[in-house]
Each structure stands twice: as structure tokens, then as C-alpha cells.
């Protein structure tokens, strides 16, 4: 049913339709509206049977989810940024134990410096935690993908992270087609665990594994992620049928056929990029876009097929591997190894800096004119950086970098308005 509502609220209502039984939650901007909405639904009895547990930290949240999931309960939580890091140990534990927990990550930058706005540094930092990672472009996709996530997690016995851009999606009010309970029930059956703590059939879960078998356990986890490469498209097709709405599967192609230049990105920026592609196409430019939905597992074959013929690949990413460069672009390069394509890494949108269609167009122009560097920081204020470096050269006690630069910029928040 079509409704005009906030992204967070749409996600909460959809998660509720997925019948979670235990929801542990700890607040952190910008995920708060999701868990607040769920808490109200549980408290009013609208979502039942369900236990909403107000935990004392994100580490507590994931730990409660672990206990609940191991007891056969469908478990869900949400977090962002620092909260994701705080539960890092538990993330690895959940995936290592094969518990099908679903979690929304409302993508937000990781400090220091503290920053509450969107980028992908949080989920990217946990890309190797063994969780499946799915990135959504819109709130409609967020809604649909959560339903997919529960089914995917439970079929594979692996936890799944649904990543949606904090504030940009979570706090946007837009038109969303919410599924019905019948539709969700038709796609998502009751959780049937592969392993469960049950006095009737006692098992030991979480034993020590030595050198004799650790490799095999890890290999199996890798195999399961690879199985997701087939399962995600399969379940997406099934979900498309149930919802009457095409689901993207592992990735999304936009006007890529014969595109000489292809822009690759994850998340909400794809909407802006598609607008830029349309604008450039109208000017006669051969350009398209690929939106990666599944980042873990990384769909090497599909990416290779989508980018195969392009001469230029511009990867726009909202996180970076400090000391080397792009994260997504590294993975993309592996996918198209051997191809003659030029791959450009563009780090953009860090800490919530807006990415405009105009900037994307300029990137293309720079690439076409062979002005674009292999690694670019979009809209970087080089002078600001240079002045700070000058300060550090002038004095040993030059002061904190962030505060110096903020003072330089002017205390009013940066941004176009």
C-alpha cells in the first residue's frame, strides 16, 4: 500500500511484518527512529509475540541477539557508526556461530573526528566480519531488502547487514509501497533453526576449535557466502513476484549497454548518479552506472560482466582505506583484472558532504579529458589542508587538526546552504 512516510518508519513497519521475536536495541543517531518505532509497536501489542530489550550498549545488543537467535528466536537490531564498532567482537561471533541475525546499519561516518552524517566507513570497516552486506539505494529498496534479508539469513545460517544511508534515507519522507502481512508471510516462513539450545536435545555451541579444524570452519563460512551469490538473485526473483516489483539482485545496471564510461557506486548516491547519467546521455555521452547491492559476498562475475566493455570505470565511494585508497575500487579491480579499462577511484561524500549531479558530470568531463587522477577526493578543499600542514611545519604544538581546520572554515557548519 502506498504511503508517504519517513524511511526509518517504513523500515520499522516492514521489520515488524517479518515477525521478529527478540529486538535488542541501543540508540545511536541516525538509527534511532527505527528502534523507537519498533519499541512502540511492541509495547502497544501491535508486534507480538516479541521482546524488545533496552540494552546497555551495542555490544549488549548484538550479544542479546546472539543468545536469542541461538535459542531459535528470529532476532533483529539496528545500529550505526561507533555502535557498529562497539559490537565488532560480537559481529564476528555471530557470523562464526552461523546465527541468522538481521541488522540495519544506518550508515554513518566513524570518528574521530566525531561526525553524525552519512558515509560508508562504518559498514566498510566490518566488511570481513562474515556478515552478508547489502546496500540499498532508496527507502523502497530498504523496505523490500529487509524482507529478503531475513529469508536469506535463515536459509544460509549467516547474519545479514542491510546498509542504508543514515539521514539521507532514514530521515527522508517519501512515497513508499509498504507490503502487506500476507505478502511477507508468503515469502518468509517461520524461523527453523539449524542449531538451537533446547533442553530436549542439548547441544554445546561455541566450543574452542584448534588448528586441526579452524581452517575448515572458516572455509565453510566462505562457501556459505559464495552460496549467497546464487541465493540472492534467486530469492530476489521470488520476492519480485511476491511484491510485484522488480528487485535488483546482486547489482543494478543503469544504461550500461555499450557505455564507454561506467560509474560504480553503492547506496543512495546512485539516484543522483542516474540523474547525472541521463543528463550526460542527453549530451550524447556514452555513459552508464552500476549500483552494487551485494558488497559481501562481492559479485566478481557479475561486476566483470557489467563492466566488461567499458573503457573507463569511475568508482565513487563513501569510505576509504587510509594509506592506500579505495575499498570498493580495490574489489572492482579484482573483478575486472586483465581488462584494459581505466579505473578511477573517487572518494566522495565523507562525513555527509553532499554529492551533486553536477560534480558527477564534472568527474566524467575530467576523466574524458584525461585530467582525472587515479585517486581523487571529490570537492576537496586543498587550501584548507595546506594551511593546516603549514601550521604543523611551523610549530610542534600545532594543536588538534580538526579544531584548527574548523576555525579556518568558520564555525558555521559546512555545506551549500
Amino acid at each position, binding site marked *: 500500500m502506498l504511503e508517504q512516510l519517513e524511511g526509518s518508519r517504513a523500515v520499522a513497519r516492514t521489520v515488524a511484518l517479518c515477525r521478529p*521475536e*527478540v529486538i*535488542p536495541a541501543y540508540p545511536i543517531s541516525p538509527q534511532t527512529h527505527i528502534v523507537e518505532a519498533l519499541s512502540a509497536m511492541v509495547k502497544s501489542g501491535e508486534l507480538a*509475540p*516479541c*521482546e524488545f*530489550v*533496552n*540494552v*546497555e*550498549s551495542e*555490544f*549488549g545488543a548484538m*550479544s*542479546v*541477539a*546472539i*543468545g*536469542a*537467535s*541461538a*535459542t*531459535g*528466536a528470529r*532476532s533483529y537490531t539496528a545500529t550505526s557508526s561507533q555502535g557498529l564498532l562497539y559490537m565488532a*567482537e*560480537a559481529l564476528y*561471533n555471530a557470523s562464526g*556461530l552461523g546465527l541468522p541475525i538481521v541488522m540495519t546499519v544506518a550508515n554513518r561516518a566513524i570518528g574521530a573526528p566525531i561526525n553524525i552524517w552519512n558515509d560508508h566507513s562504518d559498514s566498510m570497516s566490518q566488511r570481513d566480519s562474515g556478515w552478508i552486506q547489502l546496500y540499498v539505494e532508496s527507502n523502497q529498496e530498504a523496505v523490500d531488502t529487509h524482507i529478503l534479508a531475513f529469508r536469506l539469513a535463515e536459509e544460509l545460517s549467516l547474519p545479514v547487514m542491510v546498509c542504508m544511508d543514515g539521514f539521507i534515507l532514514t530521515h527522508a519522507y517519501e512515497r513508499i509501497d509498504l507490503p502487506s502481512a500476507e505478502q511477507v508471510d508468503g515469502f518468509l516462513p517461520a524461523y527453523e533453526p539449524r542449531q538451537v*539450545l*533446547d*533442553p530436549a*536435545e*542439548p*547441544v*554445546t*555451541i*561455541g*566450543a*574452542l*576449535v*584448534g588448528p*586441526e*579444524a579452524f581452517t575448515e570452519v572458516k572455509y565453510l563460512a566462505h562457501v556459505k557466502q559464495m552460496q549467497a551469490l546464487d541465493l540472492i538473485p534467486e530469492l530476489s526473483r521470488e520476492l519480485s513476484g511476491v511484491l510485484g516489483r522488480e528487485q535488483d539482485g546482486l547489482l543494478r545496471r543503469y544504461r550500461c549497454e555499450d557505455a564507454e564510461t561506467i560509474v560504480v557506486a553503492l547506496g543512495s548516491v546512485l539516484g543522483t548518479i542516474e540523474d547525472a547519467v541521463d543528463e550526460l546521455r542527453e549530451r550524447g555521452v556514452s555513459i552508464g552506472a552500476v549500483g552494487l547491492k551485494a558488497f559481501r559476498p562481492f559479485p566478481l562475475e557479475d561486476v566483470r560482466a557489467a563492466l566488461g566493455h567499458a573503457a573507463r570505470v569511475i568508482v565513487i565511494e563513501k569510505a576509504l582505506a587510509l594509506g592506500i585508497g579505495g575499498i570498493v575500487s580495490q574489489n572492482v579491480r579484482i573483478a575486472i583484472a586483465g581488462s584494459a579499462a581505466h579505473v578511477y577511484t573517487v572518494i566522495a561524500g565523507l562525513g555527509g558532504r553532499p554529492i551533486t549531479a553536477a560534480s558527477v558530470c564534472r568527474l566524467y568531463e575530467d576523466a574524458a579529458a584525461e585530467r582525472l587522477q587515479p585517486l581523487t577526493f571529490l570537492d576537496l578543499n586543498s587550501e584548507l589542508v595546506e594551511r593546516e600542514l603549514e601550521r604543523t611545519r611551523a610549530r610542534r604544538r600545532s594543536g588538534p587538526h580538526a579544531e584548527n581546520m574548523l576555525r579556518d572554515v568558520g564555525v558555521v557548519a559546512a555545506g551549500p546552504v
Partner: protein
Amino acid sequence: MATRPIKFYQVGSHAAGNRLLDPELRSVAADPNRSNAITKGHRACQGCGEALGARYALDAAMRATGGQLIAANATGCLEVFSTPYPESSWQMPWLHSLFGNAPAVATGIAAALKAKGRSDVRVVGQGGDGGTVDIGLACLSGMFERNDDVLYICYDNEAYMNTGVQRSGSTPPAARTMTTQAVGEEPGNVFGQGKSMPRIAMAHEIPYVATATVADLRDLEAKVERAMEMRGARYLHVLVTCPLGWSCEASATIEVARLAKETGLFPVFEAIDGEVSSVSKIRRRRPVEEYLELQGRYKHLFKPTRREDVLAHIQAIADRNIERYGLL
């Protein structure tokens, strides 16, 4: 069940004969049909107080719940020696997640059971002192604050034993550990504020808090049974001798634990809703020296010179406990 003090006249041993009791008052451990929640074959050290305490506590809990019990275990000695790959000595559903999250995992299990309408199945969370009073404290406090339906048992051997005897928040003053070594002007652990987990639990005013030692196993069983009659957050703090870490004879496990109580250094009591409700009195009071002398971790208080100042300071702690709890 109410405890009934029974006088035994014995020579040379503290073994209490179960055959002198009515069958229904006998200890769980005496029952050949006990659950053996931790069955034999585990790899605990000779004389391990934790293995002894956990065995008694869990079998008592299993009996009290008719076997409808699930355990969440923190990383530590108990977890390690009970699940030596590829074996497990657990004969009950058991989950080990991380070091600092056993209370939260237990909360999750209880929440799942509640959501599924299976509140007949009960939950025990357990860990050592490290996992409980240090790294697990936030999760434990959260569990108390929410009054989650979990019995949490801390097996306190007063240091991070499994990793090689390092100091924890529970390590008593002057005790030698690998990170509070017996060197310098103040050898051993510092005289800090201490961290009384039972008192912290009482400050949360949870339904039931109790302390016990492996010297009085019948008492430990009774407290577990009493705890399992209640709902909500319950906390049991058990002093468990570690012959390796404390450097005492493996055969002295029970004797050392008894002396901890009899000197007043480890008060044994119960508290209901945050108020002390019963106290296990000292039978024959001993000076702290008699307890400390048995353990190599306090050797430096006696050799090469007697540290009267430190001994007096420790004695003062015992005296204070005795007065505070009315142990005499």
C-alpha cells in the same frame, strides 16, 4: 527448603555424611541420578574449585528446574576446560559466545524463551570473576537493571586464571599475580577500593543475591535451589579456590575456601531485594594469617620478612566484614 544446622562430631575430616540425613534433604551430588550437567572427562586442574562449584551449582539447578535449563558461559577456565575440542562435557544446552557478554547472551536466551511462551525453561549465565566484575560488568548491570529472568553465577578465583594468572578487579589486596608481582616496596596487588560484586548486585535491589564457597557445597546447592524458586535477576557469587593460581596444595581446595569464610575475609550471606536477609556465621574464628599462610600468592608477606603492616591491614578488612555482616 530451610537450612537446618546439624552438629557433626568428626575427627580429621569435614566430610558430612549424607546417610545421616533424610533422603529428600540429601545433597544433589549424592544422587546417582543427578544430571551431571558437567560430566567427567573435562580438563580442569587437579583440585580446581571452579569445576567443583560449577558441578554442584548446575546439577542443583537442573534438579530444581526438572532439567529445563539453558546455560550461557563466558570465556574463561570453565568454558575452556569443559569444551576441549573436539569434546564437550556439557550434558545440557550450553552456549559460549564472548568474554564480556555472558550476562547479555543469557538475557537474549531468556527473551527468546519468553517470546516463545517457554518460560518453563530457565536460564543460567555464568563466568569467572574477570568476565563478571570487569569486562562483563556493563552487561551484568544491564541485566540487573532490567530484572531479566536469569540466574547469574560468578565463580570467583580472584584473577584471570585461564590466561595465566593476571590481576582482575576481584584480586584481593597484596595477592601476587603476574601483573601484580611480588616485587618492590609494596609487593603484590595494591590496596585499592576493591569491587564487591555482591554489594553492587544488592545496590540494584534484585530479588536475590547470595555468596557461597566450595567449602560448604550443601549451602551452595541450597542457594541455587532457592534462587531457582524465584524469577527475575538473581546473582550468586561463589569463592572457588584455584590451587594453581593461589599456589596452594590441590588437596587444600576446600580447606582454603573454609578459611576464607572463617577468617571473615569472604562473608557468606544472602540478600533479598537489596537487604541482607541471612548470614552464615563463622563457626570458629581464625586470624587471617592462617588463611594467607596456605597460599604461595601471599608468601611475600611472610618471607623474607614478615610484613606486619600488610597483615594488619588485611586483618582490618576481615574485622570490618565481621562487624558489617554480623558474622560472629
